């Protein structure tokens, strides 16, 4: 559990905004703006935040599915961005991703066997004769019967499709999986099946997950540590118990209090944030959250708070930090 498998330092991803006849760059959307964290072996790091806060872009930039703007991504001691194409290809089986929408992430013209088996053959982990047995093994592991192998994605329900997506990621014996909102498109009763499956697989194979989700109750269930993102930056990151019991950043507090709890007798103090998330193309100066923060001070409008450890591996970026 202690060995660091992934370390991300000051990762930045800016998307240029182009305009005019000559498509001149007129600005940047700062989708990921200076994000740093570490992930250990067998650990799940939950990444939460509202839509547009850059959590998915973070996941994809780490896997080098999109290129970074600045920063460093070290996977098992190797800088992912310093590898040649060939070296990166060899590394790919170790780092996989599970997507949100099981309806659009599976090729409708391929059978389940082809979807799961394609990468196995591509990476030389199986040949035409052995691939069927391997695919069947992985499907069973994900709770699908092996006779589904010749069927097409449209013949399955959402939950089953998500299992196919998991099987595809699992087939290559990865060490690290980015789960990008894997249960958001599913019904509650199916959601818990998938969450349990992910937990079981982790215990069995000691995977590391980067679990991206906007659903705090799911993140709380599955993660060991949780990071909260706002407008491209991490505002708080700590051990799960710590962050849910003792949230420091006003945004984390508001986010936690906004989650509806299925208990009608419970009366809670709710912090309702005003307004919407500002545009990431033009984030506020100083602390990015100051426009919606109920505790803002003068300094927040001018100075960006430093993201630092306040003890106990609890990282916060706030001028109040615990006072």
């Amino acid at each position: 559990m202690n060995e660091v498998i992934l370390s991300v330092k000051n990762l930045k991803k800016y998307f240029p905004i182009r305009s005019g006849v000559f498509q001149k760059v007129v600005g940047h959307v700062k989708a990921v703006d200076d994000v740093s964290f570490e992930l250990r072996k067998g650990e799940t790091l939950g990444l939460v935040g509202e839509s547009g806060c850059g959590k998915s872009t973070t996941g994809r930039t780490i896997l080098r599915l999109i290129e970074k703007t600045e920063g460093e991504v070290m996977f098992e001691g190797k800088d992912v961005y310093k590898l040649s194409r060939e070296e990166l290809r060899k590394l790919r089986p170790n780092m996989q991703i599970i997507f949100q929408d099981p309806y659009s992430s599976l090729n409708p013209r391929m059978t389940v066997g082809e979807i799961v088996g394609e990468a196995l053959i591509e990476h030389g982990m199986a040949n035409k004769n052995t691939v069927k047995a391997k695919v069947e093994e992985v499907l069973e592991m994900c709770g699908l019967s092996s006779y589904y192998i010749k069927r097409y994605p449209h013949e399955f329900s959402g939950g089953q499709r998500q299992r196919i997506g998991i099987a595809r990621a699992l087939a290559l014996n990865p060490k690290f999986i980015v789960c990008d909102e894997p249960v958001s498109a599913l019904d509650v009763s199916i959601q818990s099946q998938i969450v349990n499956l992910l937990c079981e697989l982790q215990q069995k194979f000691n995977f590391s997950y980067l679990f991206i989700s906007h659903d705090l109750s799911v993140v709380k269930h599955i993660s060991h540590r949780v990071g909260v993102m706002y407008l491209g930056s991490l505002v708080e990151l700590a051990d799960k118990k710590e962050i849910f019991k003792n949230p420091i950043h006003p945004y984390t507090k508001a986010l936690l209090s906004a989650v509806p709890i299925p208990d009608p007798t419970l009366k809670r103090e709710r912090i309702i944030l005003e307004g919407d998330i500002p545009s990431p193309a033009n984030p506020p100066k100083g602390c990015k959250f100051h426009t919606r923060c109920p505790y803002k001070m003068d300094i927040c409008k001018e100075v960006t708070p430093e993201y630092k450890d306040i003890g106990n591996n609890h990282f916060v970026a706030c001028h109040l930090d615990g006072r």
Partner: protein
Amino acid sequence: MDELLIIKNLKTYFYTDEGVVKAVDDVSLRINRGQTLCIVGESGCGKSITAMSILRLIPDPPGKIEGGEIIFEGKDLLKLSDDEVREIRGNKISMIFQEPMTSLNPVFTIGNQIIEAIMLHQKLDKKEATKKSVEALKLVGIPRAEEIINAYPHELSGGMRQRAMIAMAMVCNPTLLIADEPTTALDVTIQAQILDLMRKLKEETKTSIMLITHDLGVVAEMAEYVTVMYAGKVVEEADVIELFKNPKHPYTLGLLESKPQIHIDKEKLYSIPGQVPNPFNLPKGCYFFPRCERAMEICKEVMPTLKEVGNGHKVACHLYGGDNNE
């Protein structure tokens, strides 16, 4: 209490090439004046179709309301002419939808769309209607309402669009507001704002709300009375406190158990095995029995009926009382 809407044995079926889908199959429910009723269930359980049936918005063909009564303020909506229904739609009963982007018309300004509803149902001229729309936008907490009224839907964020939808729905002072997953597409902090707004508007205007959702957390916060649906049928209904304290139907229990909760730690999540049955091929007997851990012999053969088990709590399950009528 005073009843506003009574649905009796509603049946809405869809006739497709592959067969008949009984999307809503013998559903009865009621909403009192000033009450919030929540309908919970997973996708495909018929909760939205029930709502659309009330407003007679079912596309025909393939859909058809095959039976039942929908009595609103003493009148059966299913017996009214199209013109009479149009009088009620958007006026006495209005609806807000899940996707605020697709349910607003992108080529008209927000103001235009609200003014249209006002002028259709109230005898006001354009100037008065404009003034009223600004007031409506202010009521739902939209800042700079005078400017926003001239904005197009794409210029607003998701939360603002949903506020505009609510403004449009509330502008004719409806007695019933149907909200179909109003916050599902929104972020949690925005969801909290919108739920808060709906609660406030309900207090002020005494409008009844029929809230359709799959999120039990939202139910716990908003509902006074809850109806749980599964595969086109009502399986359980009760007062909100009673339902959460004392859930009876194995499906309701499963739903509550399988949701991770932010204030309680669980080792492993409970999960209901299997999946929602295929609507073309529903099991004989209780629709839930293939997934039910407490299924008995009788469940395979006989469909349980909805029965009162005390405290105004109704459940359709053989576990609670013998059900010998075929």
